[in-house]
């Protein structure tokens, strides 16, 4: 018995899996358990809701209130239907956008691939409210007043509410923002696929559609499903876009209800709502596991080099490239440039040359502007915030990418066992826990030393830890999607040659997964640079970051200063991108596109 267990544990996959599960238990399961337990007990706060409340005792009241009371329809069922429909629609639309783009870039001879790949990342760089704001600028009707929408003022078309607000714009803006996940995941899968498979089929006379259906589709299926779940979860948990675009037509989603409960200090109600979101996505992951689990897995990366032939687009080559670039410029570059311009404009909305200024960047204190607030580069804590942001994002992104790969390895190599499934499921929860709740729990968990963990609260380390945890859903998905394509035989060969697991990982798996690693690194880096909700509770004056600085500016209504910080963040990301391409020898365009 002990012997068998010893053998089982000698398998590095199991050993790592167990270690990972321990780590995940502490950083994820334990917080979730605490959230679960609050929903079954009365708290002092609950005396506000009902006289029955008996603090400290067991109750089903909270679940009843959400699921089966006269409030349930407005508080839960209607919002959940909205969440689900938005989730599915966003996933579907992003899939079309992301996969289409990935196919064009990877498998065809379309020109301008590098430019297009670069442009594809930009919408994700922008805060998601920018696209929603842009939508309103163009398509709002008279209902919400203010400056009329461009459609209305130019073409005198008053759009119906259903186009201007609610479901349609929420789905469209979120899809544009998040489809980069599909693009990168599916692109990586497509690029490591050997085109000989397609050629072989084509030689035997299979029509193109059949090739697509029987060969390409099954091969990228795991990546598509991963992308689907990721986007779905992101969509149902996001708050900013639905709050802005949904409010005018009272379109509530679970995420907006949850935010409201939280701000109104009905914490338990918020917990119940976020648990329902977690249940839904665990269900989706379970179905996904069933789908993938039943299929044979397809190994496309073997030791052999693979030739790539690109699908010729023929006379469509240039039109397709032009349409793609134009569309992407409109959704990515234009908003970016407008923001950049605004950061140089003394007064908003005044487009004359004399209105241009460096004040918000480098200006000193001028009582006439922003009540004397200095330019960003002169802000005394700017340097500290910049250093902290870079440090957090850099360290967290590297660690998160590697951890994601290792966990992805466990997930794929023990796909059929409980271990792989457990890691897969658990690593997915952080997207659905509201950042604030997770952070609040982390304060109690890390404020004093526990076991061998020192008191991390107030240190940058804790900010890094929580960033890594929050990004696990993405990094693990990316890691396992990319691992799934790598055959065991490479590892087995090395094992026979006497290489230790660590050597195998370092010499075989890391290099082969380089593309996926770099894209994971980059996306985590971007999210970490933009992250706010998650860290705002954990930040202390010494650990201030660029985003917490924008929080201060935004509250005071200093819009240009906020834009300056945003521009700095974007510039940093672009520099990091270029560095990753140059020195990481893992050009995303090349990685995805092939030469």
């Amino acid at each position, binding site marked *: 018995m002990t012997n*068998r*267990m010893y053998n089982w544990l000698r398998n590095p996959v199991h050993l790592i899996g*167990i270690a990972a599960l*321990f780590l995940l*238990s502490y950083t994820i*399961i*334990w917080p979730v*358990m605490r959230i679960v337990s*609050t929903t079954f007990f009365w*708290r002092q706060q609950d005396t*506000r*809701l009902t006289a029955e409340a008996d*603090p*400290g005792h067991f109750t089903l009241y909270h679940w009843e209130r959400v699921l089966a009371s*006269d*409030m349930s329809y*407005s508080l839960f069922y209607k*919002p959940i239907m909205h969440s689900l429909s938005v989730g599915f629609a966003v996933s579907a639309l992003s899939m079309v956008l992301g996969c289409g783009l990935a196919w064009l870039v990877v498998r065809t001879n379309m020109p301008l691939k590098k430019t297009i790949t670069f442009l594809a990342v930009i919408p994700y760089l922008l805060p998601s409210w920018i696209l929603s704001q842009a939508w309103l600028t163009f398509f709002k009707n008279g*209902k*919400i*007043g*203010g*400056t009329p929408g461009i459609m209305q003022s130019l073409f005198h078309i008053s759009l119906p509410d259903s186009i201007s607000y609610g479901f349609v714009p929420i789905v469209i803006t979120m899809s544009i923002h998040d489809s980069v996940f599909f693009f990168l995941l599916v692109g990586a899968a497509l690029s490591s696929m050997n085109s000989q498979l397609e050629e072989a089929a084509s030689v035997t006379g299979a029509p193109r559609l059949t090739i697509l259906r029987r060969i390409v589709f099954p091969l990228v299926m795991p990546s598509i499903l991963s992308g689907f779940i990721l986007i779905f979860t992101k969509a149902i948990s996001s708050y900013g876009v639905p*709050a*802005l675009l949904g409010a*005018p037509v*009272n379109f*509530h989603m679970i995420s*907006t*209800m949850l935010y*409201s409960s939280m*701000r*109104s*200090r*009905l914490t338990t109600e918020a917990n119940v709502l976020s648990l329902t979101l977690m249940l839904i996505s665990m269900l989706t992951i379970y179905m996904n596991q069933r789908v993938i689990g039943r299929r044979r897995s397809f190994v496309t990366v073997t030791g052999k080099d693979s030739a790539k032939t690109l699908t010729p687009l023929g006379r469509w080559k240039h039109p397709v490239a032009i349409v793609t670039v134009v569309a992407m410029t409109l959704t990515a570059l234009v908003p970016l440039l407008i923001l950049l311009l605004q950061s140089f404009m003394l007064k*908003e*909305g005044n487009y004359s040359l004399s209105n241009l200024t460096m004040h918000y960047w480098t200006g000193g204190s001028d009582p006439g502007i*922003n009540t004397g607030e200095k330019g960003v580069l002169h802000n005394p804590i700017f340097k500290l915030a910049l250093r902290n942001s870079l440090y957090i994002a850099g360290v967290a992104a590297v660690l998160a990418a590697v951890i994601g790969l290792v966990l992805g390895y466990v997930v794929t190599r023990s796909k059929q066992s*409980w271990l792989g499934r457990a890691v897969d499921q658990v690593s997915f929860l952080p997207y659905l826990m509201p950042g*604030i709740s997770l952070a*609040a729990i982390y304060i*109690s*968990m890390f*404020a*004093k030393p*526990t*076991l061998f963990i020192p*008191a991390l*609260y*107030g240190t940058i380390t804790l900010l890094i830890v929580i960033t890594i945890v929050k990004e696990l859903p993405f990094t693990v998905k990316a890691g396992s999607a990319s691992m799934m394509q790598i055959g065991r035989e490479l590892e087995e060969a090395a094992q026979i040659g006497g290489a230790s697991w660590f050597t195998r990982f370092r010499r075989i798996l890391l290099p082969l997964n380089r593309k996926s690693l770099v894209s994971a690194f980059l996306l985590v880096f971007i999210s970490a640079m933009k992250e706010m909700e998650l860290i*705002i*509770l954990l*930040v*202390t*004056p010494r650990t201030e970051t660029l985003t*917490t600085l924008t*929080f*201060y500016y935004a*509250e005071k*209504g200093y819009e240009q200063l906020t834009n300056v910080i945003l521009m700095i963040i974007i510039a940093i990301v672009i520099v990091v991108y270029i560095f990753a391409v140059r020195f990481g020898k893992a050009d995303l365009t090349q990685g995805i596109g092939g030469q």
Partner: protein
Amino acid sequence: MQTRLHKNKSLLAMIMLICAIMLMTACGTTSKDEPASTESNASTDTTTTPAADNASNGSDTSAATPAAETVEDLYAKAKEGGKLIVYSTSGRANDAAETFMKQYPGIEVEVSKVKSDEMMDKVTKEQDAGQFNPDVILTKEVSGAVYEEMVKQGRYIKYLPEEFAEVVDEPYRTQAEAYANYVEFRTIFYNTSTYSQAPVTNWWDLTTPAFKGKVYTADPLSSPAFMDLFTTMVINSDDMAAAYKAKFGTDIELHGTDNAGYEFIKQLFDNGLIVLKGSDDVLDAIGKASSEAVGLAVSGDVSKNEENGWTIAPILDIQPKTSVPDSGYLFIANKAPHEAAAKLFIRWMMGEKDGTGAGMEPFNKLGSWVPRSDVKTKNDVAFESLNLWLFDGEKLYNTAPQVRDFWIKHNS
């Protein structure tokens, strides 16, 4: 082989589960959610509290009943301590900190900006874990929750120096949970290029056909301070009923609602109230181009007029009452590590004894009132003359969830 593996699996699962449970219970004992029973573990206050300061925070109750402390004494004591930590919901504290550090060299101040509800979570969790980080708290209320969950539990402590009290206006001298360094409120804004005078004098005006589809509000579901105004109308429904009679000459008829407060909310909905995300969205809607619409926003927003290209003004007198105060309260945090500096900074923000200190300037603005009788307001109306309901923390705390439920049910 298969079945053996299975046994193995379940055994391992058991072990895992046991380990996990042990791990969890191990931590479970150290951190409880609710009470303020903060066992002072000697080992815990390591990160921020220099040992030297422990002496000064032994008397945390003294903050509530200030003895006559002179500025000089406080300054001398404060210089010995480390950095003063301020948690603030408003950036105004940053501005005050800058002048403070010039006035009192040798004391450094760091301000963390946190939303009021998040601050409650942060401070509660910190204190329960034995970490006493902040010294000064500047916060808005969250429907009475600050009072019920923080002040009553002794986490935030009121501090009003005795020699200041005589010039402080009620309710902030004795009735309110603490002294408020500035007071704002939610009220109706109108566009001054459309209307030469306030188009609304009674809250019930908003339910008339003249304003059908022309009233905006920031979403009270995501900004509890807006809900507080509606909740206060429910609490003071008699006032609302009287105002109805004054406006229409007849007694109010309830259409399936409990009282005149709820009826007002319902009639607002029926009249096509439009909910936008935030205060700025509301003012953009009515203030950018000439507009007949009116909207609910924060009085202090009037100071952003020029910057945002708005032509808006708040209405300062509405029947039965204009609004309920949204106060920026000043507290000393429980077991503040730098109590002397904290007191000194609060005095500075209050404008010192004579009410002329530069620390008050960020608070004495258009649309925000300093409740001191000796301070001249920048607004047309003095604080004492504002026609406001009392902010009743306890009632609000217990009524707000019902009003929120009513809102969710009728407007989604």
